[in-house]
Each structure stands twice: as C-alpha cells, then as structure tokens.
C-alpha cells in the first residue's frame, strides 16, 4: 500500500466533482419536500436524466444540449409522479418507488445503443488568476461550469426559501396545505411546479454522472446516488446550506474510498465500496433526533374536500 500516492490537492478537487451530482439532486428534492411532497423517485429521475443527457450530448456533440435534455427528461418523469400524487391522489411512497422502478427500466431501454461510447468532453473553466493560485486554484477554481452552477443553486434556493415571497408561499404549502388552500394559494399547482423543478435538478445530477464524472453510460450507473440525495435532505434538516455540507461529506467519503482502492489498501475493494452507504446510515442515525425541521405536511395527501 502506498498512502503517499494520494495527493490532498487532487483529493479535494475530485471531492468537489463527486459531490456535485448528489448536491444537484438533493437541492431539487429539498424544494419538493419543503412543498410538502415526498418524492422517493429521485434515483429513477437521475438515471433517466443520465441517459437523456448522454444520448443528446452524443448525438448533438454538445454537452450543453445534453444537460438541457437531462433536465427535461427528469422533469417529464417527475410529471408522471405529479400526475399520480397530485391528480390521482396516490400514496407518495408507493408512487416514488414506482417512479424509480420505471426510470431504471426506461433508462436501460433508452441506453441500449450507447454502451461503450465516449461522450463529448466538457471543458474545464480555466479562470485566469484565481486558477493559478497554488493549491486553492486547483481545488476551487478549475472545474466545469456545472460545479459552479450547483454552488450557485445552493445560494439561490437558500435565498428564495428565506427571503422571497415565492419561498414563503412554498413553505406555507409544505407546512399546512389546508391553511394555504384557505388563503387562496393553489396548493396542487405549486406542488406540481416544485415536483417538476425537483425532477429537472435530479436529471441534471444524473447527467453530471454520465457526462462528466464517469464519463460513459452503463446500466444502473447512478448506483444509489438518488437515495443518498434523499438521505442528504434529512441530514440537512431541510436547509439548503447544510445540503452543501452533506454533499461534500459524501463526496469526500466516495473519493477517499476510491483513492484507497487505487492505493491498494489492504481491505478488499467490495468492503471499501460499501462505505458511502454505511456512512449514509450512520449519518441518518446521528441526525434522526432532529425531526423538528421536517415540513409538517410532508407526504400527506391534499384533497380540497377534506
């Protein structure tokens, strides 16, 4: 084993990259849950986004189109969830599971012709001056655009939920949908919009995996990232800033175990690969005490007659 081969600079830089997909997906889910909807289909929307983005990027030669398509693909799948839970008033847990199973099947069907293909490369932004700072330049300022998009989204959602009127209404719907309805807010419409936003974010996260992080298409390649994103929202007590912290934590664990694998650490690879999932469970255990922040209407069905 050779611990010296692990460079802290590269480790931190790849941490930022590894954290981005779950960050994007978790931010989307955060908004959905703040609106009082529990969408367990994140994994399904992510993997659908991953293949939609990959296919469009390969065919058009443009990763940017790929990301747009991924957001669209995720949102379309989310629309199915919205139809089930907001129109047909189906159980949200079951509908979310259905979405994941459906998304996994759909993605492997769509992805048949794309195994073993390389997607068009995504350019890294080379920010002049900042990128030249030793250590910090490599860690913080030489990533692709999506990394910064994710960070900007954290700030945007934090601001929106805390200071904007739209955020206030969204939270009202999530905390008490009956009261929000009585005040004249369109509960169903607001929730559908939130669900679509969540789907688009999950799609972007998935495409980040297939276009930048890996980059290629394999079946089931999100490997539970969507579920980790769901856990992240709980970990973050439904706060945007904490989602970022959590995403870095998981990104760090993932990167570290991959580095340990590469360095030939004396534990079989399989046990190292378990670590992100075990850490997720551990974090859930630690954070489980703080349930007070959960939106009060989370997962409850809204029907205007009741």
């Amino acid at each position, binding site marked *: 084993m050779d611990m010296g081969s692990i460079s802290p600079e590269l480790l931190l830089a790849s941490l930022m990259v590894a954290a981005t997909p779950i960050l994007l997906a978790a931010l989307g889910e955060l908004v959905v849950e703040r609106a009082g909807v529990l969408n*367990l289909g994140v994994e399904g929307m992510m993997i659908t986004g991953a293949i939609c983005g990959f296919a469009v990027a390969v065919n058009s030669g443009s990763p940017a189109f790929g990301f747009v398509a991924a957001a669209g693909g995720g949102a379309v799948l989310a629309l*199915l969830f919205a*139809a*089930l839970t907001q129109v*047909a*008033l*189906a*159980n949200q*847990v*079951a*509908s979310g*599971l*259905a*979405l994941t*199973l*459906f*998304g*996994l*099947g*759909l993605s*492997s*069907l769509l992805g*048949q012709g794309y195994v073993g293909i390389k997607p068009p490369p995504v350019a890294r932004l080379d920010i002049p001056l900042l990128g030249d700072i030793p250590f910090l330049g490599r860690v913080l300022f030489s990533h692709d655009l999506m990394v910064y998009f994710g960070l900007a989204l954290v700030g945007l959602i934090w601001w929106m939920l805390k200071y904007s009127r739209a955020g206030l209404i969204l939270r009202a719907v999530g905390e008490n949908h009956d009261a929000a309805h009585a005040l*004249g807010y369109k509960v169903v419409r607001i929730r559908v919009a939130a669900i679509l936003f969540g789907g688009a974010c999950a799609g972007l996260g998935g495409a980040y995996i297939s276009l930048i992080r890996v980059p290629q298409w394999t*079946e089931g390649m999100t*490997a*539970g990232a969507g*579920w*980790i994103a*769901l*856990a992240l929202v*709980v970990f973050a007590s439904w706060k945007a800033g904490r989602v970022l912290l959590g995403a870095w934590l998981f990104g760090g664990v993932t990167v570290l175990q991959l580095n340990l694998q590469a360095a030939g650490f004396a534990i*079989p690879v*399989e*046990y190292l*690969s*378990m670590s992100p*999932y*075990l850490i*997720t*469970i551990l974090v*859930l*255990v630690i954070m*489980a*005490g703080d*349930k007070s922040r959960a939106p009060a209407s989370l997962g409850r069905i809204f*029907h205007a*007659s*009741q």
Partner: protein
Amino acid sequence: MLKLEKRPQPSRLWTWVTPLLAVVITMLAGGALFAALGKDPVEAIATIFWQPLFGEFAFYYRPQLLIKGAPLILIAIGLSLGFRAGIWNIGAEGQYIVGALTGAGVGLAFYPTESVLIFPLMVLAGALGGWGWAMIPAVLKLRFGTNEILVSLMLVYVAEQLLAAMALGPMKNPEGMGFPGSRNLRQYESAHNAELITGTGMHWGVVAAFIAVIFAYVLLTRHSLGYHIRLTGQAPRAARFAGVRPARLVLVCLGTAGALAGLAGMFEVSGPAGQVSIDFNVGYGFTAIIVAFLGRLHPLGILLAGLLMALTYIGGEIAQSNMGLPAAAIQLFQGMLLFFLLAVDVLTNYRIRLARREVA
C-alpha cells in the same frame, strides 16, 4: 369539469377491479411500447402472456411459473404486512441476498458431509440471515428514529457488495479454476433444494410460499396481531389508543419480511440458481414490491399477482429470444404496471363526478 369526491369508505368492487384494469391498460401501453420498438404488439403480448401457459413448449415453461413465482410471493407476503401498517421495508433485495449468503454459507461449511440435517439447518440460517439484515433498519428506527425506507434501501447496496466479496473471497469454489462463484449446491445432495415432484417445478421454496400465503391469510383475518396491523395502517391514532404497541409492530413486520425474503434467497441459491455468484440477485426484492401492491396487500391477491409477474418474466424471456425484444422493455413493462395500478386506484377511494366550475 371533472371533480373527485371522496367515498365514505373504499369501494369493495373497485378494490378488486382496479388491479385487472391496471393489467389491461399496461397491456395496451406495453403494446404501444413494443410497436414503437418495431415489434408486432399483438404477437409480443401473446408471447408474454399466452406462450408460457398454452404455447408449444408450455410443458417446459409451466414449471418455471412456480420457480419464478415462489420467491416473488414469499417476499411480497412479508412486505405486505409492513406496507399495511405503514412500515416501508423496501430493502427486501438486500435481505434476499443475505439470506442466500447465510443459507449457502451453512451448506458450504458442511461440504462434503452428507446428512439430512444440513438442509433444514440451511433453511434456518437463511431465514435468520434475512431476519437479522431486516432488524438493522428496525432497531435503528426504534432506537434512534431513523427512516426505515432509506436505511433498508442503503443496505441493499451494502448487501450487493457483500455478495461480491463472498463470491470472490471466502465462498469461492476452491476447485473452480479461479472463476468467481461458490461450489454448485445442486451437485451437493444434502444441500440441494431439489424438485420434489419431477417436472412440476415444485421445490421447497414453492411449498414455503404456499404456507406463507395461508399463514398470512389466517394472521390478517383471524388473529389479533393481524387486526393490529390493519388498524395501524388505517387509523394510527386510534390504534395507539387501542393499546397497539407500534414498536412491536415494527419488529414483527420488518422481521417477518426479512425472514421470508431470506428464505426466498436461500431456496433460490440452493435450487434454481445453484451457487453464490456476483450476479445472483435479479431484482426479485424490488419486483415483489409491485407484486404486493398488485395483489392489494392481500395474501390471495399476492398469490395471483406473483404468478402473473412470474409470467411476465418467463414470457419476457421468450419474447427476448424469439422476437428480439430487449430485456429492458420487460422491466419497463413491469414498472408501468405499478404506475397504472396506482393511477387507477383513485377510483377505489374517490368517485369521479361531473361538476360545474364554481367560484372557489
């Protein structure tokens, strides 16, 4: 303008009609999907639903119905208890894998001793393995209040890695020329879950599935525990006032589901699959969720739904080899079924009424 009006109680008629309706809609949508893939939709649907039962090679496929259906039914019965009480164990796939590992582990430990006691021991070990794996989310939920959905699901990924570690490490066949995978239990008589009646597909797992159906039926309709489970699902607050202890229900529901999933894995690894290999699990634990809902969480419904889902597996394989239908299309087809089921379910709980638009 259509409007939904809540029924005072769920319609008994629609409770049983909706699954059938969902199957019909899925056939139509699936047909459209197959047509979009350039296959003859009528032929594809007929291949999936007709060929295995009444086609030319039905004598070969009919036993497969029991082999594929048994694990689905076994797992779904366990899941349905929890789902009824609002306890969401969605990690049955992990419990299935661990049950297979512990069951096969006991068998492999005794190799090459021959004894009639080995197989019962393996059954016990399989059930215990699945039970133990399901106890992790249960205990964490009770002790710390963690969400059982996320924990049980995370443990699926852990179990998959454990399976790979076992197939490549401790359980690897020492005479396997370096290939991954354990010894083949079918060639080890004491550990082989053999066909009980030749040519029927009937093995101990099928027997266990039928027993589970009967027990679940009796439990839910005749036993106070079953009543508590139903009560908790329908009116959690009332259940608490009636003295139902939620902690006990969590342990019982997750434990039963885990043990049954573990049994399913153990019967599979010692029979149809034969060995512990990296790709041993094929998603029965997830498909069983569809089976449980399609069967309306009712034991008899699950029995029928499990057989129907087994049919789509077998028919899907035939369509794959005869018509070149991709395997993923079948997976999608199964996913659609749950989707449509949840969608038409609105008819069970609500009436659709024509309503004039009023000022809100």
